[in-house]
């Protein structure tokens, strides 16, 4: 029964998102993205269920191509395992409960300050050159790097528990919703005529 419900829910999801959009020919982009997500999801499922990474490490771990990647792969496998048995993130919570008052050495703070200063110089410097629309992209990219350093180290988010990370992430997520949906409307509707017509 449980399985039936699961498959039924999956079916609902498909019908609910794909069919109406596909049928109406509304947004091929959305469908492509969803299919990509579905492919990634099934790939993930395969890796998890069939243990592809484990097999890779076991069979080809000695080949020169793979050897340098083994530690990283093992890391990935460990994360996957922790998600599967439901302990993902929990270890971190325990750690932060123990070391709730995690003390970061001054040297780290100083390093972050240096990075922020360098970031600022880069942004100002780049702005003097003309890359056209890329200027905005570069500036925002550097700003985001700077912001993440502030978040992770100054605000200790790196050592904080998963819940606070989720809470903070949700702020940006809902901002994205506000932005994308307003923009979707603005760019698909009649352009403003700028100014009043005479009566």
């Amino acid at each position, binding site marked *: 029964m449980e399985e039936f419900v699961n498959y039924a829910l999956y079916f609902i999801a498909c019908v*609910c998102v794909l069919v*109406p959009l596909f049928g*109406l020919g*509304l947004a091929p982009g959305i469908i492509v993205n969803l299919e990509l997500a579905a492919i990634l999801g099934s790939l993930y499922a395969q890796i998890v269920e069939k243990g592809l990474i484990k097999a890779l490490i076991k069979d080809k771990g000695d080949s020169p191509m793979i050897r340098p990647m083994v530690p990283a792969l093992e890391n990935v496998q460990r994360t996957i395992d922790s998600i599967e048995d439901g302990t993902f993130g929990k270890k971190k919570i325990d750690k932060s409960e123990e070391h709730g008052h995690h003390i970061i050495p001054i040297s780290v703070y100083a390093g972050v300050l240096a990075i922020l200063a360098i970031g600022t110089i880069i942004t100002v410097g780049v702005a003097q050159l003309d890359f056209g629309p890329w200027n905005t992209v570069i500036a925002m990219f550097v700003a985001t790097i700077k912001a993440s350093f502030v978040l992770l180290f100054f605000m200790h988010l790196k050592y904080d528990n998963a*819940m606070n990370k989720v809470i903070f992430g*949700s*702020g940006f997520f*809902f901002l994205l*919703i*506000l932005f994308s*949906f*307003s923009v*979707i*409307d*603005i760019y*698909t*509707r*009649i352009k*403003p005529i*700028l*100014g*009043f017509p005479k009566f």
Partner: protein
Amino acid sequence: MAHTETHTSHDYLNHQKGLWSWLTTIDHKRIGIMYMIVILFFFLIGGIFALLIRLELFTAGPTLGIDPGTYNRLMTFHGAIMVFMVIVPGIPSIFGNFLIPIMLGAKDVAFPRLNLFSWYVFMTGAIIAFASLFFGGADTGWTFYTPYSIRQPNGVIFVVLGAFTMGMASILTGLNFIVTVHKLRAPGQTMTRIPLFVWATYATAIIQVLATPVLGITLLLLIAEKTLGVGIFDPALGGDPVLFQHFFWFYSHPAVYIMVLPAMGIISELIATYSKKTVFGYTAIAYSSLAIAAVSFIVWGHHMFVSSQSEFAGIMFSIITMLVGVPTAIKLFNWIATMYMGSIKLDAPMLFAIGFMFLFTIGGLTGVWLATLGMDVHFHDTYFVVAHFHYVMVGGTLMAFTGGIFYWFPKMFGKICKDSIARVSWVFIFTGFNVTFFPQFILGAMGMPRRYFDYLPQYESLNQVSTVGSWLIGFGFLIALYAIIDGLLRGEKASNNPWGGTTLEWLATSPPHHENFEKTPVVSVGPYEYR
């Protein structure tokens, strides 16, 4: 279950004495009661405005001898008071404050002083909003649509600033509840064992925290617009009035769920207790609250189908709006399934729950009509919309609210209201409500636009029916108020668990100890174990 005698000497009502001890209290129960007093007062004012509006619409043309400007101010204040001061803060601030810690088995909310602070912030906001009346009032409607609101005299600023401040109180309350639910559950009280009212208020709190800041910035920009002429929302300076609507509804659509989700939580409690039966599909109801909260953020465009929003955006918002209907339907079906093979007792709170189901079903179904693109073009901004949202807000939220008051009254004050009086009030409110608002569906279909001071003669007969109905509602609420006052003055002493509820608050004494429980309870079963 109910075995200990009430400890009147240690309950929260007489733990400390005097007005000052109330105004400086950090006890969540007392703060809940303080919210109750002021919100009932605001409700009275908003209700009087509503009656005046209906009276003015009794005949086509002027009836009361007021000019259209006064009518528009009445209409604006009715909306602003009812939305920002009554229905949005209502259930979370009163019942949420009073009950969430008790239901979780905690001694208080996470930040008691912040809780008191948010009461003062709320009061400040309310006072600022009312101060507008001395500066010419506001006649923009509670939506403050630009550019009209920019062109109006400065009384608007006060209402906007008041709404902003009350929004801040709403954020702080929501924040407090989220942390309380996360951090202060009693031992054994897992997330799957908390009562459904807590689930609903938790989902509400998430919306409050995530949506209200956008309202805040929108209103601040509106104030900047009026004082400095910034031009972001003013088409005369290149701004876009439709962007204002996007920002406004990004808050105000989720706000609709701030209003109705806690009501759904109350209904879950009432139906379980008065059917003496485990809630059917606890998980489904709990998660549907979260689902509604999540989806509510991406449907706001259905308020703007004819606002010159793009066709693509309209279609997108319409299809997502349809998805909200699914979790709502799940809830309704689950409640009815809970009644199946139960043992149903029609006390006043249960009558209010049934009234909720009846009216909310109508409100919900007509909501689907309004989310339908082609249909909404005709119904938008007509009395059909007015009827629809009153069916959801009044028929839904206020029904649940009144039912909740009678249900938890013994717990709050240690006395019992006369059930017979409460039932009489239900009869008047329920019939009066339908008499008032059902004709408005027909008026809307006939094409009568909303916010009209004057209307064509052909709409007169239905408007008169509607006005008569409003008197019935008013009378019904007066009886309910009488029942409450009568209960306070002459009510019988209540036992700890007069209705046979199974959630934690019925383990506490009536009225509860000032630290809720003398000994922190340990929870080992789910919330609705009737076996």
